[in-house]
């Protein structure tokens, strides 16, 4: 018998625990010519703000050993642009849709959430309180315990859609941030966002990114993410969605064992657009090889 890969998270019944991460998969159509998006556990779309936003100047991205540093700066078409341009595509496909949202103020986060509340076909909201690349919003909230709680509470008040705050890795006690989210009404928690980072051109002595600093993602941050997921799992009971440097089933399974119920593939989508599908197949193969009938048995199964 084939092992059961289905998981349920924030009330969404997903075919498997593998999602694609915000900012690495556009809004769905970008990769749809290359893979059947309905085979994914969920699509997390790129961060949406109340109004259209241009993001940072270029260069916005640089490859470094083991990953890349980005400072896109949350460019997006705004709520209306997203709903007009992309929701029809997403609704046509049999896949869970998680909309990543952000704001420059707590009120803006709540307003975006309220707008999404009326929209059919959105299964959850991921609250981006951890983008390292914008001055107002993002990690300005996610690295402040009190602000984290206030954003989550404000969003909670304005929507019935399940909410999943996305945590920043660069905090001293991830468990405290996870608890603040859970205490203020989060249905699940995703972690980690990219790690604040920087690269310099030694010939010109200038920063390579126009934004000077950015966020590191890719294989380099995977072990950091495993440790933070492990700690967050000890701190809260709500389901965790793990993100950080997944290239193959190996990294995804580590996250599940550390305590995550689902995972997101991010940077690896750029390397190999079919990564999420090979991760799904690899998890299945692992379960068969170990005689585990249900993927949920793996969650938090770390042996100490």
């Amino acid at each position, binding site marked *: 018998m084939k092992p059961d890969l289905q998981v349920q998270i924030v009330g969404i019944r997903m075919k498997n625990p593998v999602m694609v991460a915000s900012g690495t998969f556009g809004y769905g159509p970008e990769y749809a010519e290359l893979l059947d998006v309905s085979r994914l556990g969920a699509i997390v779309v790129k961060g949406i703000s109340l109004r259209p936003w241009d993001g940072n100047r270029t260069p916005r991205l640089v490859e470094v050993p083991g990953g*890349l540093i980005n400072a896109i700066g949350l460019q997006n078409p705004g709520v209306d642009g997203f709903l007009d341009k992309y929701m029809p595509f997403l609704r046509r496909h049999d896949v869970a849709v998680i909309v990543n949202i952000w704001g420059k103020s707590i009120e803006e986060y709540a307003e975006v959430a309220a707008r999404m509340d009326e929209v059919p076909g959105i299964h959850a909201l991921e609250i981006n309180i951890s983008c390292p690349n914008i001055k107002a919003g993002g990690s300005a909230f996610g690295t402040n315990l009190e602000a984290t709680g206030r954003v989550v509470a404000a969003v909670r008040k304005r929507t019935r859609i399940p909410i999943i705050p996305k945590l920043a890795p660069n905090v001293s006690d991830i468990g405290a941030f996870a608890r603040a989210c859970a205490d203020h009404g989060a249905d699940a928690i995703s972690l980690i966002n990219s790690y604040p980072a920087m690269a310099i051109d030694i010939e010109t002595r200038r920063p390579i990114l126009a934004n000077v600093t950015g966020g590191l993602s890719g294989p380099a941050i995977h072990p950091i993410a495993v440790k933070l997921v492990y700690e967050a799992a000890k701190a809260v009971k709500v389901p965790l969605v793990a993100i950080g440097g997944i290239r193959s089933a190996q990294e995804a399974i580590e996250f599940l064992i550390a305590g995550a119920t689902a995972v997101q593939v991010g940077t690896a989508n750029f390397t190999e657009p079919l990564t999420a599908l090979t991760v799904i197949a690899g998890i299945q193969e692992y379960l068969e090889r170990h005689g585990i009938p249900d993927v949920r048995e793996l969650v938090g199964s770390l042996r100490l």
Partner: protein
Amino acid sequence: MQLETGTVVRHETEGRNYRVLTLRLPLVCSTANPGQFIHLRISALHDAVLRRPFSIYRVEGDSLSILYKSVGRGTAVMQSLCPGAEVSVIGPLGNGFPVRLTPDALPVFVAGGYGVAPLYFLATRLARPGILFVGGARAADILLTSAFEALGWNVCVATEDGSMGTRGWVTVPLDAWIRTRDSVPTPEIFACGPNGMLQALALRAKQCGWKAWLSLDRHMGCGVGACLACVQRINTQDGEILVRVCKEGPVFESGTIVWEDTGNET
């Protein structure tokens, strides 16, 4: 857009510093147009998370060629690819050059260094030959001149060190030609090369009232329009908007491009 495994058919040197990699890619070849690019995954580069974009230099049947210079980590590793080796390719990507010329227009190509590669592909698909202006740092950077001549093109060369053709930038022989040419036929410009060269061409096209198609080179991430790394500001009827060089470009009509100081980007 296809995700296809390409088999190395040939890997040859071109001049002293350049190489031509030819891959068997039936699916990609069947829809490739001049000015489009492929996104290549170099599997020997284990810790690289990004693919490398290359404009298409030549398509012959099922075989697609790219022309490259070893300038970075990726291209240095690429040099070891031998016939029979397999590479992962996404392509063809982006919007290329128009292959239908404006009626009565004279095609004028302007290339910087290996920017000549996508223009050669275009030359093989255009209805008639024209003039190629090609510039580079030194003679070793001037490529494909005899290939263009074999297609009936006139070729004007400029090198910064004067080791071949006119000394200076490619705009030196171009400007001389602009001053002395007959008023008909009207040129239509197609160009690929460094940003400064393209900006200089946009200025001349505007002054002369010519149509110009410029292929932009920007740091790319995903290559398919998802990551928004390679954005460019352009003018539209609705005002300025940001577009993705990998998706809406890399070729743009020069009048639409909003030129800005892009910091340390070349």
